[in-house]
């Protein structure tokens, strides 16, 4: 199966998982001219939709189910994509190339694409099953959270990561109160540098978000089955009307593991998104993928990553050459802040800040031996765009120019 030879019209592609990744694989296959049968199997009752707005625009009522949908429902019938919703894979039989599913007969495949994503990590503590203890991965989760966010209500957020910060910002915008409870001594501890953590924490605090840092969570307490508070390790209880748990995600790789595919915190794939079985691909949050730029492999939870891999699968199936690897990037909207991140700060030995954190318009550059590994830009699009190009080129950057706001990023990037 060479990348250059298109697979014939009798090739049957089965996609397990109808999220942003799975839905995009189907769409790109048709866009790239694939005419064979496509079966798209999704566990949720909804056709593929965008998840990032769930904690932002959607929560604030600025997006609708229609605007979230990746494609209108009729797209699937019009493009001869057999969309099967409310169905999930139970087992993959690689010898007979069939997938046993929760509903209906086993599905035969020539090419299988795994796109089952990741699920929210749950806290195994007393009270975790109380009503009002919520997570945020799906539209159904977001619906529950939205219901809990009326004016004057208090949302406790366990976990000061991006989902938690975004939900807290949305809660405050809806005149609810928010308390972020974080085990580490700062928010975004696992994903951002200290300077950025401090900035976001102050910005949120100035807008009414409360913080409990270095705080362990012992239990959720409740009344008549409904959560009423979060009990901390120091004995205090933080009263709340709902508690959102945002402490990371774990890949849904059980079916892949059981089928004997190589897994290591996600399904291991190559740059073409192929697993250890050449007939099986995997995309999105589920995958452990190579990152040649940083000479390592990572599991990314981001839409651009899912799209890049979805295109790689469509290229392999239709015989198109694979595009060069992209610089990973991420974004987050909180209040009026637009955070854009390009690259990852692996092995960075120096941090340079351009701009002024007090003006909420700045960028944090992470350098390794004078080359930019990552940039975190707050309301600073030129820094993000130029930074992304510099991450890709790994061209050494002049530090004196980088800190000098009178020199444009265009000139810095030259």
């Amino acid at each position, binding site marked *: 199966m060479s990348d250059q030879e298109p697979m014939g019209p009798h090739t049957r592609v089965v996609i397990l998982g109808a999220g942003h990744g799975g839905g995009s694989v189907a*769409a790109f296959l*048709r*866009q790239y001219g694939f005419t064979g049968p496509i079966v798209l199997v999704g566990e949720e009752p909804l056709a593929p939709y*965008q998840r*990032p*707005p769930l904690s932002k625009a959607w929560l604030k009522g600025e997006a609708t189910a229609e*605007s979230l*949908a*990746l*494609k*209108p429902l009729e*797209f699937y019938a019009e*493009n001869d994509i057999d969309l099967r919703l409310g169905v999930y894979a139970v087992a993959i039989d690689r010898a007979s190339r069939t997938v046993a599913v929760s509903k209906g007969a086993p599905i035969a495949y020539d090419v299988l694409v795994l796109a089952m994503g990741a699920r929210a990590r749950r806290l195994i503590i007393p009270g975790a099953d109380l009503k009002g203890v919520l997570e945020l991965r799906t539209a159904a989760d977001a619906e529950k959270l939205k219901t809990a966010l009326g004016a004057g209500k208090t949302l406790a957020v366990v976990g000061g990561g991006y989902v938690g910060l975004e939900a807290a910002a949305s809660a405050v915008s809806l005149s609810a109160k928010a308390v972020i409870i974080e085990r580490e001594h700062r928010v975004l501890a696992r994903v951002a540098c200290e300077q950025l953590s401090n900035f976001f924490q102050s910005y949120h605090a100035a807008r009414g978000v409360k913080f409990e840092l270095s705080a362990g969570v012992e239990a959720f307490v409740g009344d008549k089955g409904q959560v009423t508070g979060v009990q901390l390790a120091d004995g205090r209880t933080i009263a709340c009307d709902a508690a959102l748990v945002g402490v990371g995600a774990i890949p849904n790789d059980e079916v892949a593991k059981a089928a004997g595919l190589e897994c290591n915190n996600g399904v291991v794939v190559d740059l073409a998104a192929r697993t250890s079985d050449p007939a099986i691909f995997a995309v999105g949050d589920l995958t452990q993928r190579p990152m040649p730029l940083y000479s390592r492999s990572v599991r990314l939870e981001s*839409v*651009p990553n899912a*799209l890049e891999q979805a295109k790689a699968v469509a290229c392999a199936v239709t015989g198109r050459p694979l*595009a060069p690897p*992209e610089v990973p*990037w991420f*974004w987050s*909207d909180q209040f009026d802040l*637009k955070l*854009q991140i390009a690259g990852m700060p692996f092995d960075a030995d120096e941090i340079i800040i351009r701009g002024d954190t007090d003006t909420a318009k700045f960028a944090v550059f992470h350098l390794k031996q004078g080359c930019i590994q990552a940039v975190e830009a707050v309301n600073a*699009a*030129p820094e993000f*765009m*130029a930074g*992304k*190009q510099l991450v890709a080129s790994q061209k050494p950057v002049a530090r004196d120019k980088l800190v000098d706001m009178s020199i444009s*990023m*265009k000139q810095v990037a030259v």
Partner: protein
Amino acid sequence: MSKITFVEHNGTEHVVEAKTGLTVMEAAVKNNVPGIDADCGGACACATCHVYVGEAWLGKLDKPSAMEESMLDFAENVEPNSRLSCQIKMSDALDGIVVTLPESQH
């Protein structure tokens, strides 16, 4: 409903109908028009929905925001009629708009 014509870099045309209020990017994505990636879903965060707007329509558009200008500044093959299609909202005044797609969005 108004009409949008997308012209791919290779000349292939796609004519789609778009509701008022929908962005040009959303119309492209929902109709699976090739060449508009829109990685960020319209958050003006990625510049992968870059289009060239036909001269007749350029003057009818709102001026780009500082954010859009900054993003475009670093996109590939930018021309004076370059815009991010996620920032163009459809209205009756734009019925018939023609946009041409760049060779690549990356």
